[in-house]
């Protein structure tokens, strides 16, 4: 009985949570310009979206491309910078370590708008013209702390003697790093990269303040401008549906695989 009410509550919340997403999914299969007005089943929005992709001239598709590219570059650089930093921080002690960890926490705690405004002022102050580069730099700023945070526990788990054992067996420090340390840190680097990538994809405020006036749009800023003009581009509906479906499928696969691995480990 208790279990029934508990489950009922959980599913009630989930239905509330997913209603808007399902709503978009449903109305991605009709042609009407406004949502909520069903004009019959059609996949025209999807074909519009794909033909836009083919021709490569639609502003929406340019925004999608920018979003992905920026996220990819920012996540890659963040992973590199963050991993090196994590190794350094891990080997620091006392107040130095606490200090740099405190600085590392700031971008995570700061609301997006503060990060955005402060970086905007920085680029003004330095006289950088704002555009692609400044957006990527800004994204690296708020992504790297998450990489550091994901790599640090792996360093703590790692037996410090393995690095020395590699040196003892004749590896140069570079080889020891590549052949012994990196493989052990890889799970943390991968989850750091994924987290950085999704943080970058999700970002709106920081991009908004650092993109300048050259007409650079990511998906978020495109949606924002579009919505403020009133009336969403209908093609956003199939796009959102596709993105949502992709993430859903990916996460379910990842989690099922993890659950299976955990089960296997438990059975041992």
């Amino acid at each position: 009985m208790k279990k029934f009410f508990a489950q009922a509550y959980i599913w009630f919340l989930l239905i509330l949570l997913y209603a808007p997403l399902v709503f978009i999914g449903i109305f991605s299969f009709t042609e009407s310009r406004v949502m909520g007005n069903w004009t019959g089943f059609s996949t025209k929005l999807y074909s519009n979206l794909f033909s836009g992709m083919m021709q490569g001239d639609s502003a929406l598709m340019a925004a999608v491309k920018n979003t992905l590219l920026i996220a990819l570059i920012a996540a890659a650089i963040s992973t590199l910078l963050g991993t090196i930093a994590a190794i350094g921080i891990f080997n620091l002690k006392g107040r130095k370590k606490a200090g740099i960890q405190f600085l590392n926490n700031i971008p995570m705690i700061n609301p997006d708008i503060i990060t955005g405004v402060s970086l905007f002022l920085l680029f003004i102050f330095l006289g950088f013209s704002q555009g692609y580069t400044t957006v990527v730099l800004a994204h690296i700023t708020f992504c790297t702390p998450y990489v550091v945070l994901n790599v640090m526990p792996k360093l703590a788990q790692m037996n410090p003697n393995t690095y020395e054992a590699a040196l003892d067996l004749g590896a140069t420090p570079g080889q020891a790093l590549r052949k012994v340390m990196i493989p052990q840190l890889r799970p943390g680097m991968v989850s750091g990269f994924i987290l950085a990538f999704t943080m970058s994809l999700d970002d709106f405020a920081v991009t908004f303040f650092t993109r300048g006036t050259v007409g650079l749009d990511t998906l978020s800023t495109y949606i924002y401008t579009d919505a403020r003009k009133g009336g969403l581009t209908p093609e956003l509906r199939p796009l959102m549906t596709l993105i949502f479906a992709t993430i859903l499928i990916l996460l379910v696969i990842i989690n099922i695989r993890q659950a299976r691995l955990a089960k296997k480990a438990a059975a041992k």
Partner: protein
Amino acid sequence: MTIKRSSWSIPYLIFLLIFVVLPLVLIAIYAFQDGEGGFTFENIARFFTDQDSLSTFALSLEVAIENTAICLLLGYPAAYILARKDLNRSAVTVILFILPMWINALMRTLATAELFNVMGVTLGKGTLLFGMAYDYLPFMIYPIYNTLNKMDKSYSEAAEDLGATPGQVFRKVTLPLSMPGITSGIMMVFMPTVSTFAISEFLTNNKIKLFGTIIQENINSSMWNYGAALALIMLVIIGITTLFNDEDEAGKVEGGLI
């Protein structure tokens, strides 16, 4: 010989100084400058004397607090149920709650606003609160779920062993021990809601202006100094809120999302 490994932190330290510390210092500098670069208290004073700014500020705080409370009230029971093996066996429901965090917040908000529209609900404060609860509920549930899930079962068993009824076990042991999860949940919901701008515009059809929107409008219309002053005030609020939270709890939680 080889360089010490602790020195590997130096490039990142320099990066942090340029892209994190300096920008924050710049907010303070711009806040106390007039258009010509001279020192002034004008910008700060203007905020405290302008009725509109003050009431927007108060409204923002109110909305953020209310939204955080709604998320906590809805989210805690959900997190509790999810963490209890006897009430919820499936890991899928947990994933379903986390999943929306991966979807662009603007998209989710737009979808919610559209849904309200179709349902014929007038956009206003009510829709703002409900819409934001949609957006931020997962951020409340996840850290609380995490703390509860990791909590050693022997604490509640010990309490029961010492004579506590299930209700007393919850009040005297489970709830106090889940405080770290609650505080980081509050942080993760309160911080973005108090500073939000785009989301509130969508959910109220621009009827209600929040503090974040004013900052954005000032910056965008090149009133940098006043914008910086407002940002500084928000930074102070954020700083005060952070004091209530344990060290890097919020970060730890996010780090474990995957």
